[in-house]
C-alpha cells in the first residue's frame, strides 16, 4: 500500500536525477571548447515498480549512466587520416626548405653555371693575356663555392631532419607510455563500475597526437583498455598489459660510420638525442642510414645496460604513413638531390679537366684533383689560383691567339653528355668523342646537357614539394570533414544544452512542487489529530 512517505521518496529521486542532469548540462557547457571533450548525456530510467493488487506502481526515476557520446569507428577513421595528413605535412616541412637550397633564382647555381660557360667564351674571344683567364677563374670559384654551400646547407637540413625524427620518436614513446598509464586508471575505474569518461577523453587527445606521428591501429578490450599496433609494420606498440613499460620501443639511428670491417652506429635511444648510444658491429649487419627509425625490444636494452656487451637487435621500422614516415621520406629525397648535385659537380669537373688536360696527358686541370669532385669538396686547383696563365685556351703546341679549347669548353652548356655519369662511363665517352686536334666533342643523342642537368634537379625538388603540398591540402579537407562529423556527434551544442537546462530546472521545480504538495497532505493528516 503506497503511502505519502514512499511518494516523498519518488520526489526526492526526481530531484536528484534532475539535479544530476542539470549538473551534466552545465558541465557540457563549461567544456564546450575543451580539447577532446565529448559531450555527456544522462541516461534516466524509471525505477523498478512494485506490485499492488492488480497494479504496478512506479517508484520514480533512476540515473543509470552518464554516457560519453562517441563514435569509435569514426575515431579509427580519423586517426588513419591524421597519419596520412601527418606524413604529407612533415614531408612538406622539410621539402619547402630544400626548395630554398635548390633554387631557381636568377642568382642561383643555374646562373653560376651559365656564367662559367660564358666566361670560357670570353676567354676564347681574347685568349691572350690574363683578362679572360681571371674571368674564368672567378666564375669557376663562384660555381665551386656555390656547390660547397649547397652541399653544406643540404647536410644541415639532413641533420635537422634527423633531429626532428628523433624528437617525434621521443614524443611518440612518451605518448604511448602516457596512454598505458591512462589504460591502467581506466581499467581500475571500470572494475569499480565507474564510467571513466574524462579519462577516455584525455586518452583520446593523446591518441590524436600519436596518430599524427605513427599510423596506429587501435583495439579495445572489455575493460576499455586500448591496444596499439603500428598499422604499417604490424608491430605491437602497446599491449593490454599495463603494469610494465611497452615491450617494444622506437629508437632512431643518429649516424652510421663504416670502416670496412665494422659499423659504428649511433643510436638515439627512445629518440633521446641528449644521450646517444654507440654500438660497434660487423660491416654488413645492418643497412641503415641516418634518420631511420628502429624497433628495439625493451628487455634487450635492459640487458645491454647491465653489461654493455649484449648489443640489442635493431629492426628497421618501414613506416609509410604518419609524421615520422613523412620526415623519413623527405630525408631519402634529400639524399637523392644531394647525390644528383654530386653527379653534376663530378661531371662538370671531370669533363672540363679532361678537355683541359687532353685526358690527363698534358696541361693543368682546373678543378683540384686532390679533392673529391663532390658538391661538398669540389674546388679550384690551387696551382691555377697561383698562376692563371696555366689555363690553356688553345692547343698545347701553339700559343696566345688560339682560343679553340676555351671555345669547346664554353659549348659544354649545350653539348649533351651521357646520363650515366660514373667515372668509367664518362671517361669512355670522352675518349671516344673528344678530338683534341680540332677541339670538338660530339653530343650523345640520348644524353643531357649541363644546362638541363641542374634544371632537372630543380624540377624534381619542385614537383616533390608540390606533391607534398597538394597532399596537405587534400588531406586537410578530408580531416576537417571528418572532424566536423566527429564534432557533430560529440560536440557540445549550446542551444541544446540551454534547452536541457531549462527542461531539467523546470522538472526540478516540478519535483519540488510534489514535495510541497506532499507536505500539505501530511499537514492535513496531522491537523486531523
Amino acid at each position, binding site marked *: 500500500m503506497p503511502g505519502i512517505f514512499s511518494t516523498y521518496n519518488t520526489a526526492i529521486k526526481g530531484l536528484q536525477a534532475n539535479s544530476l542532469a542539470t549538473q551534466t548540462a552545465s558541465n557540457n557547457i563549461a567544456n564546450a571548447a575543451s580539447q577532446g571533450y565529448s559531450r555527456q548525456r544522462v541516461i534516466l530510467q524509471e525505477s523498478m515498480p512494485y506490485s499492488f493488487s492488480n497494479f504496478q506502481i512506479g517508484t520514480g526515476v533512476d540515473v543509470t549512466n552518464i554516457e560519453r557520446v562517441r563514435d569509435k569507428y569514426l575515431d579509427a577513421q580519423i586517426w588513419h587520416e591524421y597519419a596520412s595528413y601527418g606524413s604529407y605535412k612533415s614531408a612538406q616541412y622539410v621539402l*619547402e626548405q630544400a626548395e630554398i637550397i635548390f633554387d631557381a633564382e636568377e642568382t642561383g647555381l643555374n646562373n653560376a653555371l*651559365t656564367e662559367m660557360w660564358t666566361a670560357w667564351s670570353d676567354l676564347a*674571344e681574347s685568349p*691572350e693575356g690574363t683578362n679572360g683567364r681571371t674571368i674564368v677563374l672567378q666564375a669557376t670559384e663562384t660555381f665551386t663555392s656555390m656547390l660547397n654551400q649547397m652541399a653544406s646547407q643540404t647536410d644541415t637540413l639532413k641533420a635537422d631532419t634527423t633531429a626532428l625524427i628523433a624528437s617525434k620518436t621521443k614524443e611518440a614513446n612518451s605518448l604511448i607510455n602516457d596512454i598505458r598509464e591512462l589504460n591502467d586508471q581506466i581499467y581500475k575505474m571500470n572494475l569499480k563500475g565507474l564510467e571513466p569518461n574524462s579519462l577516455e577523453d584525455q586518452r583520446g587527445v593523446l591518441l590524436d597526437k600519436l596518430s599524427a606521428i605513427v599510423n596506429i591501429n587501435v583495439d579495445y578490450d572489455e575493460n576499455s583498455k586500448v591496444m596499439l599496433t603500428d598499422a604499417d609494420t604490424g608491430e605491437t606498440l602497446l599491449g593490454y598489459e599495463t603494469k610494465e613499460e611497452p615491450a617494444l620501443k622506437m629508437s632512431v639511428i643518429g649516424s652510421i660510420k663504416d670502416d670496412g670491417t665494422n659499423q659504428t652506429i649511433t643510436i638515439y635511444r627512445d629518440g633521446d638525442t641528449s644521450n646517444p648510444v654507440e654500438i660497434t658491429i660487423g660491416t654488413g649487419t645492418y643497412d641503415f642510414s641516418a634518420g631511420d627509425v628502429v624497433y628495439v625490444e625493451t628487455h634487450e636494452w635492459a640487458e645491454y645496460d647491465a653489461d654493455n656487451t649484449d648489443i640489442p637487435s635493431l629492426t628497421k621500422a618501414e613506416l609509410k604513413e604518419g609524421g615520422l614516415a613523412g620526415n623519413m621520406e623527405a630525408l631519402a629525397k634529400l639524399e637523392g638531390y644531394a647525390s644528383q648535385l654530386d653527379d653534376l659537380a663530378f661531371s662538370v669537373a671531370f669533363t672540363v679537366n679532361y678537355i683541359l688536360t687532353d685526358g690527363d696527358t698534358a696541361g693543368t686541370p682546373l678543378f683540384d684533383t686532390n679533392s673529391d669532385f663532390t658538391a661538398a669538396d669540389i674546388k679550384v686547383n690551387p696551382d691555377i689560383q697561383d698562376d692563371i696563365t696555366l689555363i690553356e685556351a688553345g692547343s698545347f703546341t701553339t700559343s696566345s*691567339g688560339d682560343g679553340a679549347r676555351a671555345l669547346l669548353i664554353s659549348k659544354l652548356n649545350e653539348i649533351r653528355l651521357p646520363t650515366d655519369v660514373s667515372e668509367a662511363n664518362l671517361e669512355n665517352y670522352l675518349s671516344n668523342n673528344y678530338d683534341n686536334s680540332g677541339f670538338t666533342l660530339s653530343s650523345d643523342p640520348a644524353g643531357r646537357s649541363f644546362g*638541363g642537368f641542374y634544371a632537372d634537379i630543380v624540377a624534381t625538388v619542385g614537383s616533390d614539394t608540390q606533391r607534398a603540398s597538394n597532399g596537405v591540402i587534400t588531406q586537410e579537407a578530408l580531416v576537417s570533414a571528418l572532424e566536423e562529423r566527429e564534432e557533430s556527434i560529440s560536440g557540445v551544442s*549550446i542551444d541544446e544544452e*540551454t*534547452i536541457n537546462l531549462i527542461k531539467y530546472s523546470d522538472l526540478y521545480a516540478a519535483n519540488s512542487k510534489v514535495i510541497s504538495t506532499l507536505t500539505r497532505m501530511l499537514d492535513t493528516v496531522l491537523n486531523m489529530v
Partner: protein
Amino acid sequence: MRVTHKMLTDNYLSNLNKNLATMQKSQEQITGFSEILKPSDNPYEITRIMRMNSALKKSDQYLSNIDNSLGWLDATDTAIRSTVSAVQRVQELVTQGSSETYSESQLIMIADEISEIINEVTQYGNTSYQGRYIFAGHNTIESPFEVNAGKEIVYSGGITGDILTEISPGVTVSINIDAEDFLNPTGNVSIGETFQKVYDALTTGDSSTLATYAKEIEEQMDAYLALASEVGAKTNRMESAKEKNKADTLNMTEILSSIKDIDLAEKTVEHSAMKAVYDATLSIGGHILQPTLLDYLR
C-alpha cells in the same frame, strides 16, 4: 546532422584562412611581379624559365662575340683595302719605270718609293685590333711581318691558324685572314717576293725586266680584291647573325615574360575581388557567430 557552434566557428576560421592564403599568394605574385615564385609553383615551367634565362645569357655572349668580330673584320677590311691601293701604286710605278725614257737616277727614286710602299704594306699586315694582331694567325701578340735585309716582307710569327668565334648555339666561324693568305693571296708568289723583285729591278736599272712583272702585279691585285670581298662576305654574315641574334633575344624575352610575368591589371582586379570576398567573410562572421538561444532568453 547536429550542428554545434564549434562547427560554425571552425568552418568560419578555416574559410577565413583560405581567403587570406589566396590573398597572400596573389599579393606575393604582384609584389614579386612573377607568376612562378618557387619551383613547386610549377615544376615544369620553372625548368623552361631556367633554360630560357641561361639561353638569354648565352645570347648576350653571342652578341658580344659578334660585335667583337665585326670590329675585327672592319679592321681587316681597312687593312686589305689599303694594301690594294698600295699594290695599285706599285703597278703605276712599274708602268712608269718600264718606259725606257727614265734615267737610272729617276729609277732609283722610284725604287725609294717602292721601298716606302714595302714598309707601308708591312704596317698594314701588322694591323692590330684591341691589342691582337689580326693577320698573325695564332701568334696574335707578336707583330707577324717584318722586312728583311733583302727588302722582302716575311712572316715571322711562326704559328698560323684560324681565330674562331661562336656566334649562335653550335655555329662557330673563323673570322681571320691567316698570315699566309695575307702575304700570299695568289698562292703562287708572295707579295713580299713580288715587291722585292720590282725593287731589285729598279735599283739595278733593269727596266726591261721590270716590264715583265706587270702581269704578276695585276694578279696580286686581283687576289687582294678577292680577299677584300671575302672579308665583306664574312661581315655580311656577321651582320645577319646580329639581326638574328636580336630577333632571338626578343623572342625569348617575350616567351619568358609570357611564362612568368603577371598581367598586372588582371592580378589587381583578381586581388581586389579577393579582398571583397575577405571583407564580406569578416562582416558575415559578425552576424553568424554571435547569436545563441541565450540571446533570446529573458
